[in-house]
């Protein structure tokens, strides 16, 4: 028997299996052939297309849509994958509303862009369903490259390096590849174990050895890697989380959103995953939205996102905000946590209203209390475990345009490195570009 929304405390089985299955189905279901044809017909085949410029991996969008139009989605997939080997995942998770689709001329014309993301998924799914891998390795160069971190940046770099004929070893602290594709992205964006299937498909290129449970700073050292390999690429993401610094943060029921999401993504059975009745998520980025929406989808009665600045400043796009609202998540702006209250376990949260002047947030003194048996902290991930020898820029590893760090022979990319937004597609672009630079420096 499913417990109802109203059961207090943090409870499993608020919904039955059917309810869970419905809630966690594909956010943007796959197109069938007819839908793809209709959507593809809307593309104008723009000159020097704005959508392509907006894509961090510069996929030739008009070209791939034309290939769908002309009835060969397999070539379309190749066009996509040549630029972005994780084109399948990006089709599912890219915030297209702030990337390619935002600048599509049909957005300008009619407020309805060509659905580039879904067309990209149609093309890549068609190819991947055939189990085909469209690329082959060049003759071996005899060079060895170590990649640390098997998220999108590391996988993109490894694939490109392997394709160019290098031998690649990919290390990861976890026991599974994929990085946040596997442990972070919302479940309704990557259904049917897509992240893992995509990794298997990607590895068909050959020449890549995966080595799990190996952590830089523990089992691995940068010195060890630089002496054993011709080049090293670091793509360790942001393994740390920011602290709330509010009294009561240590109470039961208060935890990091990323950890909850990782648990959710790995759960065999989501009905067994406990969630609070009254959930409050602190933060304003994609992680906050994902934690809030998925809490709601698990059956929480009241879910609130509490963000300390205004709607306009929120990291999550308007599309993500509306998605949250449509699922019944309440969005509160200009409030910051003051204290988590409760006897041992969280029961309430006290929020203080804020003023933002010159970018600085300060409390107004006015407070409000919300029932909260579960509080998720989604106030940002931070770099952790990076080698001391590397120069930083802000709170990230300092890199050049092509991913070179301050140390010769060491490149970095993805969330851990400076530059670019923290997005899957940006990580792929940086991994690919660093691989090209590593290749030219090794072969040069």
């Amino acid at each position, binding site marked *: 028997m499913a417990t109802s929304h109203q059961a207090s405390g943090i409870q499993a089985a608020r919904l039955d299996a059917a309810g869970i299955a419905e809630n966690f189905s594909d956010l943007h279901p796959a197109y069938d052939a007819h839908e793809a044809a209709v959507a593809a*017909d809307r593309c104008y085949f*723009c*000159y020097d297309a704005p959508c392509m410029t907006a894509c961090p991996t510069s996929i030739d969008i008009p070209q791939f849509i034309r290939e769908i139009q002309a009835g060969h989605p397999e070539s379309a997939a190749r066009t996509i994958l040549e630029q972005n080997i994780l084109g399948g995942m990006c089709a599912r998770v890219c915030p297209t509303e702030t990337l390619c689709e935002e600048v599509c*001329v*049909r957005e300008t*014309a009619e407020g309805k862009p060509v659905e580039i993301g879904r067309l990209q998924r149609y093309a890549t799914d068609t190819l991947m369903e055939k189990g085909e891998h469209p690329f082959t390795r060049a003759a071996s160069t005899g060079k060895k490259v170590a990649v640390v971190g098997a998220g999108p940046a590391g996988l993109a770099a490894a694939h490109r390096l392997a394709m160019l004929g290098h031998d690649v070893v990919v290390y990861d602290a976890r026991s599974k590849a994929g990085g946040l594709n596997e442990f972070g992205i919302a479940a309704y964006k990557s259904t049917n174990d897509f992240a893992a299937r995509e990794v298997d498909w990607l590895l068909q290129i050959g020449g890549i050895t995966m080595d799990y449970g190996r952590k830089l700073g523990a089992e691995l050292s940068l010195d060890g890697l630089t002496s054993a390999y011709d080049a090293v690429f670091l793509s360790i993401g942001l393994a740390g989380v920011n602290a709330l610094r509010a009294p009561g943060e240590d109470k039961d029921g208060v935890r990091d959103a990323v950890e909850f999401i990782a648990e959710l993504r790995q759960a065999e059975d989501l009905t067994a995953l406990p969630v609070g009745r009254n959930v409050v998520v602190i933060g304003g980025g994609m992680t906050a939205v994902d934690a809030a929406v998925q809490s709601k989808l698990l059956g929480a009665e009241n879910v609130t996102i509490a963000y300390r600045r205004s709607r306009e400043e929120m990291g999550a796009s308007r599309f993500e905000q509306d998605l949250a609202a449509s699922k019944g998540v309440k969005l509160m702006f200009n409030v910051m946590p003051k204290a988590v209250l409760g006897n041992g376990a969280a029961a309430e949260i006290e929020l203080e209203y804020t003023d933002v002047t010159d970018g600085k947030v300060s409390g107004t003194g006015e407070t409000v209390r919300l029932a909260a048996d579960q509080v998720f902290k989604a106030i940002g991930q931070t770099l952790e475990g990076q080698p001391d020898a590397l120069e930083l820029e802000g709170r990230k590893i300092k890199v050049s345009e092509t991913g070179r760090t301050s140390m010769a022979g060491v490149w970095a990319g993805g969330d851990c490195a400076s530059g670019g937004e923290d997005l899957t597609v940006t990580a792929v672009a940086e991994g690919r570009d660093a691989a090209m630079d590593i290749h030219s420096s090794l072969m040069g």
Partner: protein
Amino acid sequence: MADLTTEFLGIKSPNPFWLASAPPTDKEYNVRRAFEAGWGGVVWKTLGSEGPPVVNVNGPRYGAIWGADRRLLGLNNIELITDRPLQTNLEEITRVKKDYPDRAVIVSIMVPCEEQAWKDILPQVEATGADGIELNFGCPHGMAERGMGSAVGQVPEYIQMVTEWCKKYYSKPVIVKLTPNITDIRHPARAANAGNADAVSLINTINSITSVDLDSMAPEPTIGGKGTHGGYCGPAVKPIALNMVAEISRDAQTRGLPISAIGGVTTWRDAAEFMAMGAGNVQVCTAAMTYGFNVVKEMISGLSNWMDEKGYTSTQDFIGMAVPNVTDWQYLDLNYVTKAKISQDDCIKCGRCFAACEDTSHQAIAMSEDRVFTVKDDECVACNLCVNVCPVENCITMVEVPAGQIDERTGEVVSGDYANWTTHPNNPSATAAE
């Protein structure tokens, strides 16, 4: 609402929209429903001689090409004339005409090129009470192999001869339907005129193969591994039909010969254009076959709305009005200068105008860093390609450079005087202007 009542050859119909001779008019059931939907008249599906009717293929008989969103642009068919017994058709025609006295009912006929064949069928058709006949000299496939259809329509002497027989054995109007599968449409039109036809109708379908099945390596539609050429119609053929109508309208020998225009009529505008080009009415086939009989409703509302706007009270008011403006290339005014102009408010920055002009025309469109597209007046030859490729209607327009201003491309002052090729200095056989 303007009154759309149209009189063509003395035959009155409530509007100028007739269904062309084709599957939509192949039987009583269809024609009654067409009249209920509002069609002004029908040309009954072509009848053949008495005796066992023709048979159609039992595999697919249509092929097509499509535009965006699978909008049907061109249809091709390998259907023959009616495959139902002559008597059945005649009985149905009689009944329908009796019940719909205010609608035009024309009977299309195709029998062998022998006087006796026509002498036999015409009295039977006359007995139905139908308003007139149309001679099908057009079908380019199947029937042509048997010496009928376009096989007749391509020989002006035969057209004249058969038309004369019909005028002899039939008392009501005779319309001769022309095939476009000929190099100069004026010759068959002149022959029909010489044979005393009351009108010509055109076009019948254009010989075509729409596609090839790349697995079976056979043309489509494919019947048991083989295909044949068929007749092409629909929106794609309208420009061809429009030119042929214009040619007949302005030919000295056929000027004034009534025309029923056919070919790609899909909306009221197509109809208005054909009529402005001299047609007394129009016939429609593919639009009805694509969307059903209700398409006529838009044609009716659109035409009357436009007539109201223009102050026309009868279709007669605008028929032929565009004919005097059709001329030969050599008489076009070479002093008429225009330049493309892009409306920045309407531009969605797709860059198609740039690609077209830069890659294939005159490098007359500039593209800035931030995707602002502007026409370089000193390069623009006013070809109109950008206008045609722009996805936003009226975003690029052609603006006339008034007389007295400088054409930045040539550096010369635009003259207000008409001057054409016949007097141009580059023309070796130019006659000096007085």
